[in-house]
């Protein structure tokens, strides 16, 4: 997988429940080339979100290695991994996960607080990101003042504001009506095509998967090609 920006090699993930070992991923390997829009599909419990969490660096594999843009993140310390996430990963969650007490502007600014950017530079970045998702007129709104689709667009603005190496999206349309889902998918497609962003998306929705370049199916912790 020489051109892959995401290289997952022989990764297994076993959860421990009391004394029981529950294997979720088994010896899984996956490569995602730079600029790809990959959809991960599969039944509930197949391990797709676990794989996404491992790629995003919020979980660690039981064995195997995960290399993102030349960094083996499975060897990073917890603190270094947090720093790495802030620079390289943009998150889009099913339920948007915006901070309810912060405005759209402040939510999008959050990841930039972990950079050395000045306030003025942060402002420029936030306004650009909110402009890309078409919410320049909603910057001072709180999440509860926005529709579900708008909230998810703010979340996407938050995911792209640091210009991350990859965007991970976990069921980004799972909580949206059809129209809003289409808008969000169109936005992800635009990010991929126009801004060459690498996107890994977990979805149950075949319509969402259709927008991706490639779809991989996970079943019982193992990958199969679509």
């Amino acid at each position, binding site marked *: 997988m020489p051109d892959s920006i995401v290289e997952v090699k022989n990764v297994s993930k076993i959860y421990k429940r009391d004394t029981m070992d529950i294997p979720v991923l088994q010896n899984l390997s996956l490569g995602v080339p730079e600029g790809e829009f990959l959809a991960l599909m599969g039944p509930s419990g197949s391990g797709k979100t676990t794989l996404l969490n491992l790629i995003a660096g919020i979980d660690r594999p039981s064995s195997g290695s995960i290399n993102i843009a030349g960094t083996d993140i499975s060897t990073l310390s917890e603190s270094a991994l947090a720093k790495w996430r802030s620079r390289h990963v943009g998150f889009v969650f099913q339920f948007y*996960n915006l*901070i309810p007490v912060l405005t759209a502007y402040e939510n999008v600014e959050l990841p930039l607080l972990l950079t050395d950017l000045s306030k003025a530079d942060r402002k420029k970045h936030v306004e650009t990101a909110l402009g890309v998702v078409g919410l320049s007129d909603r910057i001072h709104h709180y999440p509860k003042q926005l529709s579900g689709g708008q909230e998810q667009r703010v979340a996407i603005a*938050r995911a792209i504001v640091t210009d991350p190496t990859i965007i991970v999206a976990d069921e980004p349309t799972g909580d949206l009506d059809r129209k809003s889902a289409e808008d969000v998918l169109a936005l992800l497609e635009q990010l991929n095509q126009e801004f060459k962003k690498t996107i890994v998306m977990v979805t149950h929705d075949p319509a969402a998967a259709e927008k991706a370049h490639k779809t991989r199916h996970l079943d019982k912790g193992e990958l199969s090609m679509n």
Partner: protein
Amino acid sequence: MKIPLSYSFRSLWTRKLTTFLTIAGVALVAFVFTAVLMLANGIKDTMVATGSDDNAIVLRKSAESETLSIITFDEANTIGTQPEIAVGSDGQPLMTKEVLTIINLRKHGAGPSDLSNVTVRGVTPDGVMLRPQVKLTEGRMFNFGASELIVGNEIADRFDGMEIGKTIKFAGRLWTIVGHFDAGKSGFASDIWGDQNQILQAFHRQAYSSIVMRLRDKKDFSALKTKFESDPRFNDLKIEPEKQFYAEQSETLSNFISILGIVITVIFSFGAMIGAMITMYAAVANRTVEIGTLRALGFQRRSVLGAFLIESLFIALLGAGIGLVCALFLSFLTISTTDFSSFSEIAFGFTMTPSIVISTLVFATLMGFVGGFLPSFRAARLDIVNALRSG
């Protein structure tokens, strides 16, 4: 860069009632804490204001207060010959040989047998001059040689039968009240003053209680003190700067109030800290997904710990602010109690100082920190994946 303060501050108001009740709990503790310190400080202020920098006071060595002290007429006369004492316009040493005694009077609203001790101070004309803070507010000065009295305003306001023109009976005589006086913040405001000679005679006293003198120069005090320590005629006596004497007098009562009050507030504070802890645990439980999100975005555990601790400190400091403002209103109050060193009534106010404000803020910060630490630590320890799933 940390999680913005606005996150911690605004999050407080997402659960308004709980936050408000927790703040109220902290405010109550902060109020009691401040009130106790203001009271102890008020006592110190009152007693220190009783003394003057320019005066020195002589008492019997073993006496802890003026009422317990005895100075014989011979000793008093010898003291009067010391050159360190300033001389008045009449060519006589500027000093007052005073006699203190205690009488029983009834406070307004007290029962027939519920009497309080009040100090009666027999003074000389110099005694009046040495206490410039004592000013007549009503009536006139008592006449030397007559059974007349003037009453400090704290006694006039609180006790029965203290009106001008009324008579009170003690030591087998009827004494007429001819004036009321104000003594600023000093303890003299809780005295009744009369002519030293009349009081000596009425009580058949053969000795004075204390001697207060104006020194020629403040620097002469150490020379005079050395003399008191080495001259056998003064063997049984001690001399102190008047201000220091009254400051020491205040210590027993103010320390008692401080210690008792602080012990009570510390016990109260456990309640407030547990309240803050419950509130913060609830906040962490309600915001688990938010914590997971912040951690996923790259905020470190210590940033999450800091954000929640700051939230707890906000609660504590808001509580402290409210407690302090409420306590400020106590400055308008005056209360009285029995001074342990003289066993007589003393009135004092609540005095706020910058150091009390700082102490209260530090105490509240400590409450916020202790109450908030465990929940914040729990927030910081949350596993990201589990936290995100909990939504």
